[in-house]
């Protein structure tokens, strides 16, 4: 089944075409990576999928439903979770509270119930708390639950951001450069983690990443953006050998060097 279908999406900022006629399809359970040089339009592409920007042209279908031009909160409610390139945690909230915010849409407490803290509100809050704690345990951050998110080390902030997105119980998870700023050991752990959540949580994952080792190892398929246009798509080996990709991104002579 296709989780995501992007059909000819274009986004312009003034004269600049940030995303140009990009189409792609992501199947259920896949890890699909989008790579390309800095400034190639990858993050803009994510922002189009999550409703932060509205495309000038084209359509976006999520689970067969047209979500073109929807708002970020609607995209989240439909089941698209995401992380951000430059980590956007709620820094002054605790780790646990960050997860609880992630569970916002699943905590069904009407306003008056919350105001009066009725039995219904208590029950829902308790449930939310239990689930949040078990999620923290799952990702290995339980011991940090009462610390402010901003005080976590960088690697754990990245992890918490993914955990917060998981709290949405998304069907599609968008990860924007999750390995940025990680050393090889941390990257390896991240790789295990991504594979684990994919298989255990039945997720489809769309990944933007610069770390080629990570991308080549975990992606089922890869699309390459350059100058806002998709210049290649395929399995990791295919992409790696594609001359256009080598020229635009991996660097001239990369193929020769590898040989």
């Amino acid at each position, binding site marked *: 089944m296709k989780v995501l279908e992007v059909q000819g999406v274009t986004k312009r900022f003034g004269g600049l075409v940030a995303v140009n006629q990009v189409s792609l399809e992501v199947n259920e359970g896949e890890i699909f990576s989008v790579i390309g040089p800095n400034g190639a339009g990858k993050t803009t592409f994510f922002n189009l999928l999550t409703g932060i920007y509205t495309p000038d042209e084209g359509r976006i279908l999520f689970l067969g439903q047209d979500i073109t031009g929807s*708002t970020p*909160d609607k995209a*989240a409610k439909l089941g698209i*979770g995401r992380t951000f390139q430059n980590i956007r945690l709620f820094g002054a909230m605790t780790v646990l*509270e960050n997860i609880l915010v992630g569970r*916002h849409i699943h905590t069904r407490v009407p*306003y008056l119930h919350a*105001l009066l803290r009725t039995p219904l509100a208590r029950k829902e809050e308790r449930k*939310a708390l239990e689930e949040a704690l078990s999620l923290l345990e799952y990702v290995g951050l339980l011991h940090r639950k009462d610390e402010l998110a901003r005080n976590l080390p960088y690697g754990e902030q990245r992890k918490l951001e993914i955990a917060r997105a998981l709290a949405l119980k998304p069907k599609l998870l968008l990860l924007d450069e999750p390995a940025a700023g990680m050393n090889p050991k941390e990257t390896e752990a991240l790789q295990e983690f991504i594979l684990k959540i994919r298989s255990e949580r039945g997720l489809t994952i769309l990944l933007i990443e610069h770390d080629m080792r990570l991308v080549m190892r975990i992606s089922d398929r890869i699309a390459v953006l350059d100058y806002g246009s998709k210049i290649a798509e395929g399995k990791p080996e295919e992409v790696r050998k594609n001359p256009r990709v080598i020229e635009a991104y991996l660097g001239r002579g990369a193929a020769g060097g590898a040989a």
Partner: protein
Amino acid sequence: MSLLSLALSLVFLLLSFLAPNTLTAFLGLGALGVAAFARLEPRVRTLNLALLTLAFTLFLRSSGNTLGLIGLVGILVALTTLPRIPRGIRVALGLAILLLSVPIAGFANTFIFELGIQIGIFAAMSLGLNVVVGMAGLLDLGYAAFFAVGAYTWAIFGSPQAGKFLQGNFPLPGEYMYLFMLIAVVTTAITGLLIGLPALRLRGDYLAIVTLGLGEVVRILANNLDHPINITNGPQGITPVGRPPIDWFRSLMGALGVRLDETTDYQLFFYLLVLVMIGLVVLANVNLANSRFGRAWVAIREDEIAAQAMGIPLLPTKLIAFMTGAAFSGVMGVIYGAQRTFVSPESFTLLASITILAMVILGGMGSIPGAILGAAALTILNLDILKTFSEFVRTSLPWIPSQVDPAKYERLVFGLILILMMIYRPQGLIPEARHRAELEEEA
């Protein structure tokens, strides 16, 4: 240290009997400072606070000096914020101060009641604004508009005013005030919706100026809607605004052995009513803060884009915060109008909005004890200290021109408080954990 602290408290207690004057009050405040900030054993600290409660009560009763009230508020704040004081003692001492000390002093000096009621009304409003500014991070500079809507909601129908444009028997009987407290929740929430719906779509700083403008619009309407139809009676304001009959309260108090006269009966009644309201407002604040709504507000304040990515819709969530704050203010407006029996546009200027904002900021954005402390401090400053200072200037410094009347310089004082707090202690006097983290980090 423990001994010194205890000794200080005891000296103050003794002096409260012998020489209840301003100097003694400062000694008492000093003793309170030591009891709150020195490294003391929890038991010693608790004992100290109990002693000080007794001493300030006696002092207030014998002198009527409002510095004593500051002391009592200080103890309340200490009780709510200091760690490791047994829960039972917190509650017992707190109730003793609110239900015994203040009324005892109030019977001796009715100004204390007046001050207590004003503090209470402003504290409840600060708590309401605290939801909007402190939790959700929405800078509302027109908050007094909701106070006005609440006050007018009852004033128009609780006085003969409504008869000027409606058929029917006005004023409505005083007991309708309780009903109108509920109605005011609705009218102010609707006003909040009308102002918020356009304003909350805007970025933070634009929101501030638009709420300021729309707050002014409400005041202009109150000032001018005496024609073509006389709804608000214009700048003269509306009087007399009805109060609920309190025969039941008199007999209840009589049964408890409290003798009331014609001024103290309503004062004690409104004082207790305001206390109940603060209790409710605090409860609502705490409940909301620990709910999905409270978390969503903080999340929006921290990062709107990330909050949206968590499925939180911006406008509706902000509107709920805005309307909640508005409703708190509206209810207090009804009580304010009834207690003073007079409502006029004068009370709802930008100055009023900024005063409430200054209370929240002084106490600490997002902090519940902070909002109460801020309200107490600024109300006492405004109603008492500046006036006393004026008196002093008039009698002791006659060379200062008569136009320079310190009581009229609230803006100078509030402005200075805002500036100094923002520069030196943006997290407020009693910071909430989150804001402390956020604002101290920058320091």
